[in-house]
């Protein structure tokens, strides 16, 4: 892991070496030049007010990219203002409605009045909370995100700068050549459409403080942890996501109870509420969620939409229907987590056990918790089983397998990807973990797994893939990158190379993937 992290900046430095000597200084300079040019352009065109927009954004992005945390104050304030305005409007509406209610129900005016009083301080409290919390979050996430983003976003930044330069250049030419045309354009009311055609600020939308303000800290933590590569495999990500969602659910439920809204719309409202949260994780749909996590989210949404208050008869313990429904959802989440990450492991190990019985030596590649569990279980039954762990490079993620085997008192072989040609000839079975099984039977696994699969095929060694059923997705690969686990790019092992997939239901050929999707209701309707 550490090696990987080191390698990232090295890569970028090598690429930048060719272009510039001092990248930060160069970037600053180009941005300054650019802003000057844009100003000049504005002056030439006589639209000083309009041109400030890109100018500001550029300046902001520049300051953000360097170090400035203070500069969040301005957009933050505007956001707060907006929120306050909204609050005020909502309060007015409420007041009106309550006044009307009071008029109608003049019999009990004393009840309405204290309610009003009660609610007001609450609203104020929530206002305060919301006002106070965002800056903290912003700072937190900034702290968390800054170190990796420096590495990560250099390329996008550069690209953005390039595009900015291009735009700027062409704009200037236009300004010189087709002067009147632009003037006409600026006077029209389609100002906003013009603004959208202006170059994007060279920062990701994720970094914008105003967009983070309403995101729950639990989700912010997840994305920050993924950025820093603290979460680097899918299992962990799914577990953390479920954990974060449960946390979010509790707080949302509490807020809901205070509002005391209709229990029948719980599902609908929750569905609306989680949308921006999920959008934050996918960077507003920029990348799709990792395959299997997408599955969990889809199932979760299905469960949420069931919460329409129609099943209140099932809730025996809870008196409040809202709370009861949320409890059911919470239990579902807990159950999903337990089924997929504890029971499924045991089931897979159980199914693999008879197959591994006569095997002389097993090979695996990279880290996967399922495979680790399976290996330990098999070694427990057959202590003479040889285990060969292959890593993309020595002392990579696969060392976790080695550590866990050593801790349990087993011996193993350890090697790296380049030595597979020799190691595979000594192995009689390959067991791989995966991050998804696609509907056409292809297996998405860690980078380098394809080479293992090809070597296994060349040496006629069976290749089994251990996968829980929730990792079966009704998709084929249409994109190379996913959100959150972006650096942990996956590679597809074609179904031709996979002997069988060991799932928690049974051992299946890869061609049975559609059947699993159907059986587990994971297919897209």
């Amino acid at each position, binding site marked *: 892991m550490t*090696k*990987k992290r*080191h*390698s990232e900046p*090295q*890569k970028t*430095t*090598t690429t930048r070496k*060719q272009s510039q000597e001092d990248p930060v200084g160069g970037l600053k300079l180009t941005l300054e030049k650019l802003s000057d040019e844009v100003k000049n352009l504005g002056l030439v065109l006589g639209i000083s007010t309009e041109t400030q927009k890109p100018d500001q954004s550029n300046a902001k992005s520049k300051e953000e990219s360097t170090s400035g945390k203070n500069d969040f104050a301005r957009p933050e304030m505007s956001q707060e203002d907006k929120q306050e305005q909204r609050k005020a409007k909502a309060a007015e509406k409420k007041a009106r409605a309550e006044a009307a209610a009071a008029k109608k129900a003049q019999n009990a005016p004393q009840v309405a009045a204290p309610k009003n009083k009660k609610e007001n301080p609450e609203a104020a409290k929530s206002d305060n909370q919301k006002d106070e919390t965002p800056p903290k979050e912003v700072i937190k996430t900034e702290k968390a995100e800054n170190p990796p983003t420096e590495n990560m976003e250099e390329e996008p930044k550069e690209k953005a700068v390039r595009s900015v330069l291009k735009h700027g250049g062409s704009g200037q030419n236009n300004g010189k050549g087709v002067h009147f045309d632009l003037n006409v354009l600026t006077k029209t009311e389609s100002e906003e459409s013009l603004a959208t055609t202006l170059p994007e600020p060279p920062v990701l939308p994720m970094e914008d403080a105003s967009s983070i303000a309403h995101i729950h800290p639990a989700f912010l933590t997840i994305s920050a942890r993924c950025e820093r590569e603290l979460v680097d495999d899918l299992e962990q990500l799914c577990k953390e996501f479920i954990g974060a969602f449960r946390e979010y659910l509790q707080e949302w439920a509490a807020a809901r109870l205070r509002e005391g809204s209709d229990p029948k719309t719980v599902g609908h409202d929750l569905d609306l509420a989680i949308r921006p949260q999920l959008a934050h994780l996918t960077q507003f749909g920029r990348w799709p969620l990792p395959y299997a996590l997408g599955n969990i989210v889809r199932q979760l949404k299905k469960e949420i939409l069931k919460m329409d208050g129609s099943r209140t008869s099932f809730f025996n313990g809870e008196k409040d229907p809202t709370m009861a429904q949320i409890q059911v959802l919470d239990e579902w989440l807990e159950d999903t987590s337990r089924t997929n990450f504890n029971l499924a492991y045991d089931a897979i190990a159980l199914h693999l056990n008879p197959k591994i019985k006569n095997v002389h030596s097993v090979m695996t590649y990279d880290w996967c918790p399922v495979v680790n569990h399976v290996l330990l279980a098999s070694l427990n039954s057959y202590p003479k089983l040889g285990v*060969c762990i292959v890593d*993309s*490079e*020595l*002392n990579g993620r696969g*060392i976790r397998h*080695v550590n866990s085997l*050593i801790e349990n008192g087993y*011996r*193993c*072989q*350890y*090697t*790296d*990807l*380049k*030595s*597979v*040609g*020799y*190691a595979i*000839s000594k192995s009689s079975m390959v067991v791989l973990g995966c991050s998804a099984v696609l509907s056409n039977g292809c297996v998405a696994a*860690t*980078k*380098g797994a*394809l*080479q*293992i699969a*090809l*070597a296994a095929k*060349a040496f006629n060694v069976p290749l089994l893939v251990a996968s829980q059923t929730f990792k079966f997705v009704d998709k084929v690969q249409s994109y190379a990158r996913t959100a959150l686990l972006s650096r942990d*790019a996956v*590679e597809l092992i074609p179904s031709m190379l996979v002997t069988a997939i060991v799932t928690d239901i049974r051992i299946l050929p890869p061609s049975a993937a559609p059947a699993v999707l159907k059986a587990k209701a994971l297919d897209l309707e």
Partner: protein
Amino acid sequence: MESNEIESLRRSLVASFRKRDSRESSQKVALQVINYLRKVVLQEKFESLHQLIQSLHRNGRVLSAVEPNELIIINIVLMVSKLARDEAQATKGPGSLTPYDSLYTLWREIGSNEKSFNIKKIKKDLIQSIKEIITEVETSRDSIASQASELINSQDVVLVYSLKNSPTLDGFLASARRTRKYRVYNVVKSTEIDDSPDFATPIQHCDVGNKMCETTKVVLSGAAVFPDGSCLVPAGGLTIALTAQRHSVPVFVLAAFYKITPFFIPDPSALNTSCRADIPFDLANKLSGKVELIQPAFDILPSQLISLFVSNSSSLIPAHVNRLKEDYYHPQDISEF
């Protein structure tokens, strides 16, 4: 029999083999062995061709016993002994026959005349042809590199492996760079990314699968070529070649003539050497006695994965290696050695 000078020469040669901490370039090894054999031929006294060849073989066996993994020693010894036979043949004239001549020749040339030959002349001619072979070894890199412009086209994306350890590969790419504009992916360890030369884009071994889609040619450097068309390449070459085959990307193996091994190795893994694993000390300490680290130096590349061998005289398909073998080795030597 052997003079002290030969003995000391051999000692120094063996010492130079043993002293090195990593494998030297094969060209250097080849030159060292040829020079040693040249001195053997010069110093020792022979009465007949048989003695000369026996002496060469004896010296070769001693050297290859010292370095059993170095196939080049055997190759060079057999090559020199073939030269000796050729010289003898030339002195004898065209009339003499050997059991390995073609049936047609045997049928046509009835009645060989047993000419006595002059061993001194053979020796002199042998020294001359050894000198020629030295020049051939020395120029082998250049002649391989000169074929680069035929094999690499403009806009190609070439994936190379173990560029750091192979001056031949480096020369090949440099030669192609002079006339062609192409991109290079250099497969390296993550720790060596900074050391990668400027003209190449460094990628890690696990990225090979992804990058193979863009690659149009794979160039590997061979360590030994077997008569069946398979070859030894640095460890990791096998998975690269397998990936290339999956993506229908041609694989070229650069191997000079002295890397063509004249006989089949039934179990090439037996002569596979291990190299040192570079892991941190504390990890090594933790793993010691519990974990076996597998670090072979070479992979065996079966012939069906190779599109073309680039040798110094020509480029040839794996099936033709056996034919080329006969240019350099005498069948009697192969069976006797």
